[in-house]
């Protein structure tokens, strides 16, 4: 009798335990994680470089992100005691970064391009650069640093870059018996070729025109036509952003759509230009280095050429750069510097495929300057000496909103001059 009572008690206890375990499972796990977090911060507080976990925020996703994670792993292997936590912010990069700075809890290392907006939250790197000869600062393309300096201080090291060129589908040219474009070709040449290569019955067009352009990218054309979006001293846009040359430089794209030898891509209801080019439905496509691998994979026989020139003027390029910076609030600046240095080292740069190497030695080693496909990117790097607008005025992002509206309207067939005039009119208030 006693035996059965004990047995029953035992069974009941097992059941009760099981039930309470089910109920409490979540909580205990949660608190465990919390503890983990606590110990980490304690460790970090104790030791500046020894045992540290540094957070690295990136805007990349997909393949590019995987490469960055591999770089982080290699760094960890070479630097025992430092852990790198890669945080892919993706589309929400700006918001999350701003939130991190606002909460004084930013990632230690982050991708950076918009130095005028963030430089106050970033650690100046000049001291590190001077101290650390292993960085080999002379091996970097000097033009890259212009973008990363605010008020004479260096806030980021370039990790990768691209300039913009014209891709062309050799097969379409060959089929039409048209010679490939050569550097120094003009916009008129472009128009003539595009018209010839447009066959609306096959939904084939001479050139793809973005519906939603980034005004930053269009600056190369504006500069090539001898104008700019803002005065060099950053004080005026009237006569710059809405100059005749600016209107003409942007207008050529709208005109291509309007006159039918260009097609709008990438907006709502449309495929992206990269995809259409891959499908062989556009002959010419202006872009950076990013889609090149995809074109090759898609089996497109692709060629590259410098963008066209406006008559009698030099072609100018615009540089898109990924830099890495250290947050001013970082608690592990030494460790962060080690990671930044590794990230721009020869080993890491060679692992990157989505953009172009920033080190002269690697470019020479790989013979990019001799490779017809890559050569235009480096010749355009030499032509990218103009200062982009966002470096010249702190309120540029507000001005840019209006400019973007104007550009979008131009692509949709509106008069370029009128649209730009309106944008300037509405943006004057931001200059004061």
């Amino acid at each position, binding site marked *: *009798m006693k035996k059965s009572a004990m047995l029953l008690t035992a069974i009941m206890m097992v059941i009760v335990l099981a039930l309470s375990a089910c109920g409490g499972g979540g909580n205990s796990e949660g608190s465990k994680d919390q503890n983990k977090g606590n110990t980490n911060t304690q460790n970090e507080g104790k030791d500046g470089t020894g045992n540290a976990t540094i957070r690295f925020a990136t805007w990349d996703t997909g393949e590019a992100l995987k490469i960055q994670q591999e770089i982080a792993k290699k760094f960890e292997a070479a630097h025992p005691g430092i852990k790198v936590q890669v945080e892919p912010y993706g589309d929400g990069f700006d918001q999350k970064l701003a939130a991190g700075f606002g909460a004084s809890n930013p990632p230690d290392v982050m991708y950076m391009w918009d130095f005028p907006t963030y430089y106050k939250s970033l650690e100046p790197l000049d001291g590190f650069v001077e101290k650390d000869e292993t960085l080999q600062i002379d091996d970097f393309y000097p033009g890259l640093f212009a973008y990363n300096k605010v008020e004479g201080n260096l806030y980021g090291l370039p990790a990768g870059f691209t300039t913009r060129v014209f891709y062309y589908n050799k097969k379409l040219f060959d089929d039409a018996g048209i010679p490939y474009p050569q550097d120094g070709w003009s916009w008129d040449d472009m128009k003539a070729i595009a018209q010839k290569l447009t066959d609306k019955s096959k939904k084939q067009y001479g050139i793809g025109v973005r519906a939603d352009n980034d005004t930053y990218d269009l600056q190369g054309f504006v500069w090539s036509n001898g104008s700019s979006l803002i005065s060099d001293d950053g004080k005026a846009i009237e006569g710059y952003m809405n100059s005749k040359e600016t209107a003409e430089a942007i207008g050529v794209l709208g005109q291509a759509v309007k006159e039918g030898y260009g097609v709008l891509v990438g907006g709502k209801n449309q495929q992206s230009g990269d995809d259409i080019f891959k499908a062989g439905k556009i002959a010419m496509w202006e872009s950076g280095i990013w889609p090149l691998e995809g074109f090759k994979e898609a089996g497109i026989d692709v060629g590259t050429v410098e963008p066209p020139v406006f008559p009698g003027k030099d072609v100018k390029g615009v540089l898109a750069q990924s830099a890495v910076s250290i947050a001013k609030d970082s608690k592990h600046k030494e460790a962060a510097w080690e990671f930044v240095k590794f990230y721009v080292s020869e080993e890491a740069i060679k692992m990157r495929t989505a953009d172009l190497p920033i080190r002269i030695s690697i470019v020479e080693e790989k013979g990019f300057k001799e490779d017809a496909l890559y050569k235009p990117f480096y010749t355009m790097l030499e032509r990218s000496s103009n200062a982009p607008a966002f470096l010249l005025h702190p309120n540029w992002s507000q001005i840019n909103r209006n400019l973007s509206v104007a550009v979008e309207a131009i692509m949709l067939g509106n008069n370029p001059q009128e649209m730009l005039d309106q944008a300037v009119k509405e943006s004057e208030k931001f200059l004061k």
Partner: protein
Amino acid sequence: MDRTPQGWIRRGLQLPRKSIRFKLLTFFLVVAIIPLLSLGFLSYRTSSDLLHVQFGKYGENAVSQLQYQIDAQLRQMRLTAEYIHSYLLDPTKSVITEEVPKSYSQIQEKNNLEDFLKALKTEMHAGVFIVTKSGYFYGENTLMPDVLRQESWWTGISPEFRGQYWTGLYETHHYRADYRDASRKVMGLVVPIRNKEGPLKESSILIEMEADDIYDQLKRFERDMVASLTIRNSAGKVIYDSLGDREPQTDDVIWSQPLAENDWTVEARLPYETFYQSSNVIRSYTVIGLALSVLLALILAVWLASKFTSRIKRVKDSMNKAGAGKLQTRIEVDSEDELGVLGRSFNNMVAQIQTLLDEVTRTEQQKKEAELRAIHYQINPHLLFNTLNSIQWKARLQGNEDIRKMLYHLTMVLEGNLDITQELVTVERELAMIDHFLHIQRIRYGDMFSYEVDVDQGAAEALIPRMSLQPLFENIFFHGFEDGEGLITLKLQAEQELLRLTLQDNGRGMTEERARALLNPGSKRTTRGGLGVANVDQKFKLHFGPQYGLSIESTPEQGTSIMIVWPRKESASHE
């Protein structure tokens, strides 16, 4: 012996009635098993009831938790839609067009609206859009409206519908492949814009939230609870259903929880067997436990019963032996309990029986001896009496009166003495015979002694063994008196049950040792007279019991007093 199966069964059925061991065993088992079974049943019922209540509550809570989480998501969607709605109600937004925006201000408003939508979009949102009638949409460039317009849930929305249309839980094919995987689940909300006027009047707000988490939770719930889940709206449309092929049974355990945000109801169904599975486990454990305990009880009962009954059996066997005549049988007594006392009493009893039996055997033998002796002494009385009568006549003829009288009295005494047909005679008759004896003595010694008789009234009718007084009188004359000179007093007192006879003389008396020796029949006979006293004593004892008989008090040179006590009995013939 009956060796047929029926015989075995009959004997098997008889056994219980015969064996105390079986009865004890049954008793122990009943005593152990009844509480065991009731306790087992009770604890099974209590624990399984408790378990059901707990499990039921757990299930309810789990469903409530699901409901809460779905509600939280739905609420966020509803709030997002309401924000957008209030944004659009602002009259300055009237530039927003249904068609593709073309003018500067249209594009500007589009950008503002899209910025607003983007700001509303969280990680949990798959998409936040305003889809116009023409097929244009505002929002991030991730939607494929052509695909959207072919989705059945989208076309199912009536153009007249107003309010919140919850599109359910589904996979998305209407997003660009590079944006999100079509197999990921979303929950959708469509709110047709209520503007009576204005360009967006027939547009709809479309909000879709990532539902993979909720979907996982539903799946986890199903796995953990082994239940199937169904979410339905009030119209009975199935939003989510994991019932699959299983037909809903009427005895399913059902937890149902309506959502607070919309008309959906979360319903979890658990097959009856699954719900009661755990109590079945308890039941089997209880049954196993009970079986083990019953087995234990059985073993204990057998052991206890055999321990008790083996001792009882020993007593029984000893009794059987003693009953069969082996009176030397004794029970080994090794305890002080009732069985020990019983054994000891039995031993005493057997010992007593043995003594009694010896006594009886001895008495019987004595009687036989006496009878033999009596036969030995039996002379033909007729010869004796006829001879005595002849002598008497001769004496009368010769005129010797003394001899004739002596012969007469002797005849009378002998008559009493030789009549062996009656062992018990009345006191009256015995005293009459004593008178004849005394007449003889008076003739012999002359009138030298006096004799006083005092008999209580009614005592004369009482019975006394024959010839029991005469030897005593004879002793007085031969041993007590010198030449027949003295005083004899006979006193017979009748008490309620007893007669007390005191015979006293004032003769020579005797020592105490001699008086004791007189009553002991086994002692060496020194004089003739001694035997008579002992025989008289034996006569009383034989007739009435060992507690009766003679006692002698004597003082040398003073006299002797003999006292006889025997029970008072009346002669049957006198009644």
